[in-house]
């Protein structure tokens, strides 16, 4: 898993533009072994771009991205990007990641490894199902299983809480918490502010650049959230955790209709 505090990925003064339009500017971020970081921000804030820079599938326009030598990365993509009509079963999908083998059929050891990782995530009974037959939460677990089969040092997840219901969102974040407890370094992006505030110890608020990094209580403040999302938000404390309220959904003053 890497020595704790050893830098795995470092973004140094990173700028990135698509067709001349800046997406990220002045991004400095270090991800160390043992970190469990959640990136929050509005749509178009550059969260997925940040993830792809850390993955190495994008190169910065200026600045540097350094990765630890020989870093093994497990990547869980957004469900929206997946071709769900593709003819693969859950087991076939998970086994894809062992692409270094030159023959198509799985060895006994590989079959055992697939069963173990699916069992660990509670979906071993779905191994022969087509990927489209799974619920959103099961689909997330399947891709997490595929990422874990690589025995990664760093786990990157793009919106792992989107496309799934509230209870499954919390299960997913619990599961990631357990993986972190086992020593896994994790970086995820999400729109679920309250979910990450409750489950993720280290948050990054960004909108084109990193605006704040710290514990949930330091990042989930009205000032940082308004700066990040461009809209006023209220933050309550519940059981010692910040709870974010969207003012549009929870107006401070009741709306009184004219007689």
């Amino acid at each position, binding site marked *: 898993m890497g020595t704790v505090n050893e830098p795995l990925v470092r973004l140094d003064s990173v700028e990135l533009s698509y067709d001349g339009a800046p997406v990220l500017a002045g991004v400095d971020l270090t991800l160390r072994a043992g970190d469990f970081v959640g990136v929050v921000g509005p749509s178009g804030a550059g969260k997925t771009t940040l993830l792809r820079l850390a*993955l*190495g*599938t994008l190169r910065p326009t200026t600045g540097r991205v350094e990765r630890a030598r020989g870093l093994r*990365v497990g*990547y869980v*993509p957004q*469900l*929206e*990007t*997946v*071709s*769900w*009509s*593709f*003819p*693969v*079963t859950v087991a*076939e*999908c998970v*086994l*894809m*990641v*062992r*692409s*270094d*083998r*030159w*023959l*198509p059929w799985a060895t006994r050891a590989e079959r055992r490894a697939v069963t173990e990782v699916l069992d660990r995530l509670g979906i071993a009974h779905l191994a022969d199902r*087509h990927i*489209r037959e799974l*619920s*959103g*939460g099961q*689909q997330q677990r399947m891709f997490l299983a*595929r990422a874990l089969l*690589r025995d990664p040092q760093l786990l990157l997840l793009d919106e792992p809480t*989107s*496309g*799934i*219901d*509230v209870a499954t969102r919390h299960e997913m974040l619990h599961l990631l918490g357990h993986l972190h407890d086992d020593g896994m370094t994790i970086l995820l992006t999400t729109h679920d502010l309250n979910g990450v505030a409750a489950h993720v110890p280290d948050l990054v608020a960004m909108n084109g650049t990193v605006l704040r990094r710290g514990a949930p209580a330091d990042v989930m403040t009205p000032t940082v959230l308004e700066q990040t999302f461009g809209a006023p938000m209220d933050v309550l404390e519940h059981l010692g955790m910040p709870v974010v309220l969207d003012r549009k959904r929870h107006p401070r003053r009741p709306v009184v209709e004219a007689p």
Partner: protein
Amino acid sequence: MIETLLEPFGYAFFVKGVVVATLAGALCGLVGVYVVLRGMSYIGHGLSHAIFGGFAASSVIGLNYVLGAGIWGFASALAINRVSRAHRIGADAAIGVITTASFALGVALLTVFGNRGPSFDAALFGSIIGISTGDVWTLVAVSALTVAVVLTRYRALLFATFDPEVADVSGVRVARTDALLMLVLSLAILATLSIIGVTLVAATLVIPAVVARMLTHRFATMLWLSSAIGALCGLVGMNLSYHLDVPSGTTIVLTGATVFALVLMATGGRGLQRAPRAAVL
């Protein structure tokens, strides 16, 4: 009835034609799985036209037409793949521009310099009697190469087809894998052109794979099923070609289209529908 059906098997050219059509069908069925699943069904149509340009250019400069058209087709396939992967324009537009320009160049070269190579009528529509021993050996060699590539690069091809971005960060050399697939595809089209023809080869790539997709949701099963359906269409289509006295390419494609219609009716197009999104609370 039986005697009538068996009659053409008394002719050596027909037996050779049946063997080649069956093998060509299986080869196109196998490669077609990747073409269909990558959403590049139009590529077969486009590439065959691009390869026609290669035929013409080879004829003009006196180069071996298999080599010349092969290189031309591979270069076109790489260009299409590169342009479509870049997402700036869609694969359909990339194919439309690159391959029709290549076809037009081929027609222009033949018009100006004349045809000094093989029959271009056969190249356009396929021919039961135009199959040379060289065509047979080319097809056997390309089929063997394709099976070897699919077997040895099975997981990399599958991963790069299903999810190229994750494959790339998981150790698959996606650009190299794509290039390998494009090479195999170009060779498959080139090797089957003489029997199926430029204008119809796309259907032999697409129909067996689409039919197989309606019958299974397993990738490995789809590969052999598509090959078997392609082989069956080649076998039946070649027999129909003899009895109906029409070009072999047309009967092979019409056989495939009939199988497609029957399976579509039986399954309701299962496997071809877009996936419903997972429920969101």
